[in-house]
């Protein structure tokens, strides 16, 4: 057992921290907000390309594809640092599509995509969910029909966060409608500027934007098929095992800020921090963050030792997102009436961060596999409970 970073890892993390401190400009955050709390505009890309130029976007990729060949642990740690300061965190191209291309893509595909991705030059967005296929990926309707050199795509996706600023869609689509479920789906890369693609904004209750994407006779060159035809479901599952991680440091930063608020706010002549109930609540959040941190770095450790995370990734997602909701709610409780004031309000505490997180936290236990889906995976895969 070893719960520390190596000296080398620490040094690199120190550099990342210092970069994040100096390079996260006001303009970056303003742009994000204007894009519907979504990173991917000019400032965002400038930032991430500079960040990526150190190899930090894909640190555990091999150097030939633009990585540093570091441990997964370090990659996980870097994401925690990014999460803590509130910069964009999940890069579909670098963190989901890239590894799948690396594992399953043709040499041509690797050569074409991996270096630009590692440099932060192209942005992808995820295209799995459809209205009737939320937790149930076997229920996809979108069709890609083989037209020789290309596929002809028709259908609809929903909850495509980032689509309005991304370059490409990392799309799951039916390529064999007659196949048994899961066996007729393929992954392809679709240029979002293709004729026939219609991206319509959807606004969430957290204020940030996601999108519906409609495909009407969209042509996708065959070279954009990822790996084998009809193997998409397998690739998605594989990516889930390898790529799922939910750094909770964003919410961790809220705990720190709420604790600081409690230390510096006086109620009835006493610092809020001296209220035993407030103390219990904040300490509990600290403890749950610590527990999550172990579930998180266990995944990295497994990757670093050649193991494939499985139910462990579900457990971390489940745990992290439920903690996230408790943290947001605890923040609202500690801040009291002041917590409900939004950013622009004169009397807002913590610049409205708490109420924003509180709204955002609603979706945490829903997206990327609901808590119910995760508990099922833990039971069936982690404990091998019977399916029937």
């Amino acid at each position, binding site marked *: 057992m070893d719960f520390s970073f190596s000296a080398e890892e620490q040094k690199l993390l120190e550099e990342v921290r210092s970069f994040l401190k100096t390079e996260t400009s006001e303009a970056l955050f303003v742009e994000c907000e204007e894009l519907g709390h979504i990173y991917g505009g000019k400032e965002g890309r400038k930032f991430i390309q500079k960040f990526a130029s150190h190899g930090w976007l894909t640190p555990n990729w091999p150097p030939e594809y633009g990585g540093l060949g570091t441990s997964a642990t370090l990659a996980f740690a870097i994401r925690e640092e990014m999460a803590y300061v509130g910069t964009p965190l999940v890069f579909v191209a670098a963190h989901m599509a890239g590894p799948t291309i690396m594992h399953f893509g043709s040499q041509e595909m690797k050569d074409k995509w991996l270096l630009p991705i590692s440099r932060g030059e192209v942005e992808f967005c995820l295209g799995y969910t459809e209205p009737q296929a939320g937790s149930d990926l076997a229920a996809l309707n979108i069709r890609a029909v083989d037209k020789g050199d290309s596929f002809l795509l028709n259908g609809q996706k929903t909850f495509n966060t980032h689509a309005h600023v991304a370059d490409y869609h990392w799309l799951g689509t039916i390529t064999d409608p007659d196949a048994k479920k899961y066996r007729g789906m393929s992954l392809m890369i679709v240029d979002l500027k293709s004729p026939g693609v219609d991206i319509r904004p959807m606004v969430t209750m957290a204020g940030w934007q996601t999108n519906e994407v409609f495909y009407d006779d969209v042509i996708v060159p065959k070279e954009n098929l990822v790996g084998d035809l009809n193997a998409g479901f397998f690739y998605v599952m594989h990516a889930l095992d390898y790529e799922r991680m939910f750094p909770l440091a964003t919410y961790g930063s809220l705990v720190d800020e709420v604790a600081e608020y409690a230390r510096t706010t006086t109620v009835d002549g006493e610092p809020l921090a001296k209220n035993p109930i407030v103390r219990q609540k904040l300490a509990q959040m600290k403890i749950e963050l610590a527990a999550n941190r172990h579930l998180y770095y266990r995944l990295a450790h497994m990757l670093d030792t050649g193991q494939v995370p499985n139910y462990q990734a579900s457990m971390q997602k489940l745990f992290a997102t439920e903690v996230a909701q408790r943290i947001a709610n605890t923040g609202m409780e500690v801040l009291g009436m002041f917590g409900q004031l939004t950013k622009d309000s004169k009397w807002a505490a913590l610049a409205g961060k708490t109420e924003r997180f509180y709204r955002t936290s609603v979706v945490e236990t*829903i*997206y990327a596999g609901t808590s119910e889906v995760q508990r099922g995976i833990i039971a069936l895969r982690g404990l091998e409970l019977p399916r029937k």
Partner: protein
Amino acid sequence: MNYELNEEQRIIKESANRFLAETCSTDFVREMTEDEKGFTQEFWNKMAELGWMGLPFPEEVGGAGMSFSDLAIILTEMGYFCAPGPFFSTVVLGGLTVLEAGNDEQKTRILSELAVGSRILTLAWLEEGGSWGPKGINLRAESQDGEFALSGTKLFVPDAHVADTIIVAARTGDAPEEISLFEVDANAPGVGITLLESFGGDKLCEVVFDNVKVPMANLLGKAGGGWPVLNNTLLKAAVGKAAQMDGASQMALKFAVDYVKERVQFGKLIGTFQAVQFHCADMLTYADTIHFMTSHAAWKIAEGLPFEEEASMCKAWVSEAHRKLVGLSHQVLGGVAFMEEHDLQLYFRRAKAAELAFGDASFHREKVAQAMGL
């Protein structure tokens, strides 16, 4: 023991439900949330015509002489539909305080206007310190030349921006509970009102009092005797807020139940999944206990019995149960209800605002502990 509404109450409930179903769509609610004023005169006048404003006040002042339980029924339906406007501020916060503390002249003058919908009231008590107790009230009312001069800032004053009259809790002495209540004209010189942007969808204001002159005659109740009255009003308001949550719970439950009976995933109606069933079962348990705890506290008030412990038990329970119920509804509805366009978010926002209003669960548990002699 009787756990059902009586005939008259059923009629109140049904007519309120019918009226709000017709007039208070969620489109209207959304529009009013954006609207600076927060309600339309038309909507307000209709409620007044239905006699809602005067419902809990004596007939002598133009009221209907009905009970707090009856008022709670109206509030429940308003909660069910997220009805906007200063009804709660006017009737519960303002009206009940005047009824409790006012002299005959004040009661007649204020409540008769209130009852016909021509006077909007609110109550200003919270301040910067974030305290719920009397020590948190530091806005001073200095007695000088036969009048009072008020200076200080009140926060989280609901609907002050549209109020005609603000009842202000002000400090008139140094002892912790030396608080007095004043009827203050919202348009008086020196009163500065600013809307606070709040995520709950309600209209909370900062009200700055800059040497605002208030005539002696506008003292409500005895000088220095304001705290017990205020405390009483705030406990009733806590129960009134619980009644709104009661109604809102029914709607949040309905969203979920309707959805799970039609949404298919993995080839099945999701309502057949045990996990979904259990979430819904827990929602129903929350909904039923919310309803009973609220009804009981309201009944205690209505009967003129000591209600302090029941009011705090009610607010403590309902605040958390309602939040959890709405959370389960979100969980069951999934991504669909995370969209701004789904109405559940309206309830989610109001649930948290209602939880915080008039003391959250921890605050009221502490009051229950006091009542237990701990």
